[in-house]
């Protein structure tokens, strides 16, 4: 669709950054560095570019590079899964609603509108406290349980957002004459959806999906900051939570995760914007 060289410099940087994040997410555990929980007792609170710790350590001895890589894995996994699932379910419902119309459309659209009214943080808080918190607060909750509940709550929030986009795009495209032409050729409805509607709706969805990544990453970080997300700082939000108190003497402990978070969200937003701009340009030709 478009070449790397054609993009503007800032956009190229964004793509490169996201590439780096993906690399960390996929190959993090295989890198020749210790797990983030390893305590370097001799190097408490050292600044970045110190020997052995390129990003420094925090006051508890945790290496920040390892922590940030672990955070990347967490964020990427949650974002990709939530957006992926939300997109799949949302677009299936949205396309169906727009194609079938009538009562089905009415029901689904209302459901979307109701869903859109639910604030994501509140929902996540509610679900996590119900499903992923033990009554006995001293017992540790396994991380995977928290992750699953987070993904579920974020998926629920994303379904109506992506569903509405899919529905709108389907309404536009199914009104085009080539769909009528396909029907007059004797094509079945499912075939029409598969061959004619989906390929034309997909680009709009992907553009929004990128923007949604940014939102999900921040949501996860916020929840972790509040203590309701991934416990114990295995995520960017957790790092920020831990680093809050170190601001006076070791500000780098706070800045590092914040910078990673900010650049990642800027990158996804930028790519989402560029995709949307390309799309509008192409569609205006048609």
């Amino acid at each position, binding site marked *: 669709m478009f070449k790397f060289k054609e993009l503007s410099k800032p956009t190229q940087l964004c793509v490169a950054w996201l590439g780096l994040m993906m690399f960390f997410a996929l190959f993090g555990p295989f890198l020749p560095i210790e797990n983030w929980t390893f305590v370097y007792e001799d190097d408490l609170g050292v600044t970045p570019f110190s020997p052995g710790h390129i990003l420094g350590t925090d006051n508890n001895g945790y290496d920040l590079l390892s922590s940030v890589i672990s955070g990347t894995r967490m964020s990427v996994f949650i974002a990709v899964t939530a957006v992926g699932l939300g997109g799949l379910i949302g677009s299936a419902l949205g396309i169906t609603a727009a194609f079938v119309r009538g009562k089905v459309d009415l029901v689904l659209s209302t459901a979307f509108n109701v869903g859109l009214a639910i604030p994501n943080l509140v929902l996540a808080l509610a679900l996590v406290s119900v499903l992923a918190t033990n009554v006995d607060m001293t017992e540790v909750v396994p991380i995977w349980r928290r992750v699953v509940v987070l993904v579920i709550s974020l998926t629920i929030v994303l379904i109506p957002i992506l569903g509405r986009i899919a529905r709108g795009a389907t309404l536009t495209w199914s009104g085009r004459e080539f769909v009528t032409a396909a029907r*007059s050729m004797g094509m079945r409805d499912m075939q029409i959806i598969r061959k004619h509607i989906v390929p034309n709706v997909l680009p709009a969805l992907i553009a929004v999906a990128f923007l949604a990544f940014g939102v999900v990453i921040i949501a996860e970080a916020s929840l972790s900051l509040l203590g309701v997300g991934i416990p114990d700082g295995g995520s960017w939000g957790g790092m920020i939570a831990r680093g809050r108190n170190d601001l006076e003497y070791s500000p780098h402990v706070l800045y590092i995760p914040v910078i990673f978070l900010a650049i990642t969200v800027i990158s996804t937003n930028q790519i989402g914007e560029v995709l949307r701009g390309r799309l509008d340009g192409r569609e205006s030709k048609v």
Partner: protein
Amino acid sequence: MAGSGTAHMRNTVDSVLTVRDLTVEFRVGKNKTVKAVSGLSLDVVKGETLAIVGESGCGKTTLARAILQLPPPNSGEVIFDGTDMTLLPKENLRSARTSMQMIFQDPISSLNPRMTVHQLIDEPLEIWDRGTRAERDERINKLLFSVGLEPDLVLNRRSYEFSGGQCQRISIARALALDPRMLICDEPVSALDVSIQAQILNLLLFMKETYGLTMLFISHDLAVVKAISTRVMVMYLGKICEVAPPDVLYSQPAHHYTRALLNSVPIPDPTKQIRTELLQGEPPSPMNPPSGCRFRTRCVGASALCAEQEPQLREVSPGQFVACHHPIV
């Protein structure tokens, strides 16, 4: 103006398409219905090109879609090749449709912008499994040649790379892929440049002769219709005004609307300008059409009878049928 009236029907075995008493209405809002087509009957004989002429809102496009059952009409019969399409179950309807293909007004939006020309024309062949890969490719090439396009130059390109005229050629090739008996053309040249219109019209005429097609040609452009049709039907607000062969209709219109329509067409000859009585006012709303003859509110020849009784089609000269209580003699 007649809604019903079947005097113009020929009821022969050569009829490819027979439509009886077709009605299409749309509900808009609480108690309002748009009466797009009201009790209309027509027939198309093999080898004929029936042109349906009318201005916007007369129901001609709705009529075409209703014939294809996209969507099906509210009532009436659509008998194609001996079968009433309104009664067919979904599966049979799918296959029945393949004998009746349609060409649309907007050449670019009638082609999926993501598909190559090869995929576009192959699609109908693929749906109905017509032949092996090699046979289908050969057929696609032949079709492209016959519409005046070089296969090598177009097969791998997409619709947005072509001009309007070329897109329309591709649509015609696609429509002919399944060897239809009948071609419904819905304003196929309205969106094209003047010099391209002639090319596409000639192409349609050529296709008709080569493949022995029967055509239903819908247009608002009287000049285009005259060039291509063998029989013309004039519609107004969902009803038929007049049916006649083109030479007769254009030189001796019997219906007041037909005459007003003809007088409005700008002629590219400064010495032949008609400045007579122009049709005044606007067409009434299709949600609330006038009683009796639907044209009476704008007709110079209207009488009290026109408001009470709906005129039926009757023959006023050989082959010329008009729905009017006081036709022009």
